């Protein structure tokens, strides 16, 4: 099985950390992983995106034109990248920051998750990326929650390990929001 | 009978390509004597430069790397870092060291690389036929300064021994000349000191040797020697400009 997911938002939303986290989780499950980051020309507050591909065998192209799942965290990313989602694919949208009214994405399942709001409710808006990862995990069924939990130890620097329980809770909340 | 004069072991028994009256041969000999007297020939790696000094490997009976033009201090840096137990020296002319190689010499000196640099300043590009060098004296006519070096356009000659002495990485910097027996004896003392500093791992040591180039100066060897005294030494005063052992 080969999975691909595209994450996009603005710098500061933890898009790259989310991609790293999913990568470590996939490695934890014995998969081969390819994580391809891309940045806007602006180094602060500009666009941030990454593609993660994981598979039992060859990961193939690190670049994906039409992702099976896209997780879009701000309006700019949604406007630019929602149309690229593959037919039959899923577009997970941070509805706290994204207005989707009037946008038709035929053949694509749009999943609205108020990620900022959920993160705020969990105590810190900076955990928006963890909420996003939880939503992806639940919707795609590609990775187990235990793998993501284990991945936090690798993706976060040692000094932030005390935040792991809070991050796990944020991921669970993201997953719950998708289950509805 | 007591032997009082012989060829240094570090030099090969061959004729050099140097022109009559050229001081390169004298500098070669003094460096070779220093290697012999410290007994370090078998530990020494020479780095040749581009110019009249390019045939270093043909005259010195030691292992030699031939560096690209101006890059000898960088090559020596690599060799010394790879083999810190070896004695590494470069031998460079004025165009090589003070024009195209200015960046390499300044930075290796500033890093305090444990190498010795022998800089032969004859105020001209010898090998290519006497063009203007970074050390060509004000007013000096060369094949590319036919009206004489114009300081307002060409800048003033670089005083390398003084310039390098300002860098913290430099342990020893001195200027010597070879135009009289007294100066040769002093030059030998200075060159030995420079190598001793490397043996003692004191840091970067630098010798600037004022040398004659009778062919490109259009002079006979005696007049060329005289020019070293009359024109070069007043502009490039002899002496020790840096000696960390005396700080």
């Amino acid at each position, binding site marked *: 099985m080969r999975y691909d997911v595209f994450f996009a938002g603005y710098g500061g939303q933890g898009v790259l950390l989310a991609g*790293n986290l999913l*990568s*470590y989780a996939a*490695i934890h499950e014995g*998969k*081969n*992983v*390819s*994580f*391809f*980051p891309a940045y806007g*020309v602006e180094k602060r507050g500009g666009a941030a995106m990454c593609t993660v591909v994981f598979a039992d065998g*060859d*990961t*193939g*192209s*690190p*670049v*994906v*034109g*039409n992702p099976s799942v896209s997780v879009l965290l701000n309006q700019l990313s949604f406007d630019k990248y929602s149309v690229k989602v593959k037919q039959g694919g899923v577009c997970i949208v941070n509805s706290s920051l994204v207005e989707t009214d009037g946008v038709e994405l035929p053949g694509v399942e749009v999943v609205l998750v108020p990620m900022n709001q959920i993160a705020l409710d969990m105590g810190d808006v900076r955990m928006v990326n963890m909420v996003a990862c939880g939503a992806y995990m639940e919707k795609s069924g590609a990775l187990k929650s235990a793998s993501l939990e284990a991945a936090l130890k*690798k993706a976060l620097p040692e000094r932030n390990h005390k935040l792991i329980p809070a991050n796990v809770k944020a991921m669970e909340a993201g997953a719950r929001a998708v289950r509805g | 009978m007591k032997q009082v004069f012989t060829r240094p072991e570090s030099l090969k028994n061959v004729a050099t390509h140097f022109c009559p009256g050229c001081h390169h041969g004298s500098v070669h000999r003094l460096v070779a004597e220093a290697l012999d007297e410290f007994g370090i*020939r*078998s*530990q*020494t*790696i020479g*780095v*040749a430069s581009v110019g009249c000094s*390019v045939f270093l*490997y043909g005259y010195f*009976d*030691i*292992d*030699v*790397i*031939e*560096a*690209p033009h101006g*890059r000898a201090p*960088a*090559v*020596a*840096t*690599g*060799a*010394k*870092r*790879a*083999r810190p137990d*070896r*004695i590494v020296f470069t031998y460079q002319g004025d165009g090589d060291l003070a024009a195209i190689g200015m*960046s*390499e010499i*300044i*930075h290796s000196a500033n*890093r305090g690389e444990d190498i010795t640099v022998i800089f032969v300043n004859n105020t001209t590009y010898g090998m290519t036929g006497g063009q203007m060098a970074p050390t060509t004296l004000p007013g000096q006519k060369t094949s590319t300064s036919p009206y004489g070096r114009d300081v307002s356009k060409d800048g003033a000659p670089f005083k390398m021994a003084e310039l390098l002495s300002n860098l913290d990485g430099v342990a020893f910097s001195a200027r010597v000349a070879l135009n009289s027996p007294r100066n040769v004896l002093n030059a030998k003392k200075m060159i030995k000191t420079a190598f001793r500093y490397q043996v003692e791992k004191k840091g970067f040591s630098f010798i600037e040797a004022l040398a004659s180039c009778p062919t490109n100066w259009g002079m006979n060897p005696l007049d060329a020697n005289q020019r070293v005294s009359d024109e070069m030494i007043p502009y490039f005063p002899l002496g020790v400009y840096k000696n960390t052992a005396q700080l």
Partner: protein
Amino acid sequence: MQTTAAEKIFVKGNEAVAMAAIEAGCRCYFGYPITPQSDIPEYLSRELPGRGGEFIQAESEIGAINMLLGASAAGTRAMTSSSGPGISLKQEGISYMAGSELPGVIVDIMRAGPGLGGIDASQADYWQATRGGGHGGYRIIVLAPASVQEMYDLTMLAFDLSDIYRMPAMVLADSVVGQMKESVTPNPRPQVALPAKEWVVRGRSEGEPQNVVKSLYLGDGEMEAFHWKMQARYQELADNECRWEEAQTSDAELIVTAFGSTARIAKTAVAMAREAGMKVGLMRPITLFPFPRKTFASLSERCKLFLDIELSTGQMIDDVRLSVARDADVAFYGRPPGAGSLPTPEELFEQIKKNYRVRPEQSRI
């Protein structure tokens, strides 16, 4: 030596290069900062000194390549790395190293050019790398990794080939492979029989021959003899060291060819074409010099259509055309390097569809 399988790690391509260099016994690194390869000097400045190695941030790329020359002449495994503008500066030293028959590893994480260009992925330094790059007529070994695992493996291979054939070896990658992270098995250094370095400058002792590392050949016939000797060595490389990856070529009506990360993208496009029932294969040169000419020649005995894809306006295509049979066609699809020019598999699949044609059965022998 480590015998158990190493555990997988998750690292950037650039970091994999640095880790492999240490594993390969590289003791000296000399470099100068330039995007997108600065992870390499950063990693080695942290990791080399503690392992008895030397790291120097040189005054320039020129300084760095000449330090490499010196360290290599003294018999040490050494490396430098850079990108386009810096690699141009290193060409002087590379030419001298080639002329002096010195090994040494140079990593080029290509960026867009000419001039200052941009920091995006590019493959436009193919000519510079495979044609020698500097003056005088020479070649160097050029290896093109397409994954982070290959960044690791080919860096180690570069050290071995460079030592065996006594010439500089270049790892030619682009910023996609340099910047992306993948799961990698950090394999232990392979046990390779290496020739003794009898030529190194080491300090000449009594009875030992004088060793001189030089590129000056003034004697009658000396320079010419050097060139013929090197020509024979290049042939030996071509005979023994060509490496490539082939996929689904045996029945292919069209063979896509690409190197580096472009080949990764193309491979997925080839899989899309196969799913659509098209007989398409992939030929990815891993050694760009020596170029796997014989493989192209034999593939073109049967398959008469190639599609060369590059992140440039076309450079490797020269070598493909020189290698395939005269009656084979080589189509081209290129994206000049720069922001937004990285092709997607879907885009390359469109190009495959556009060029694909099945030859009538009778025309095949």
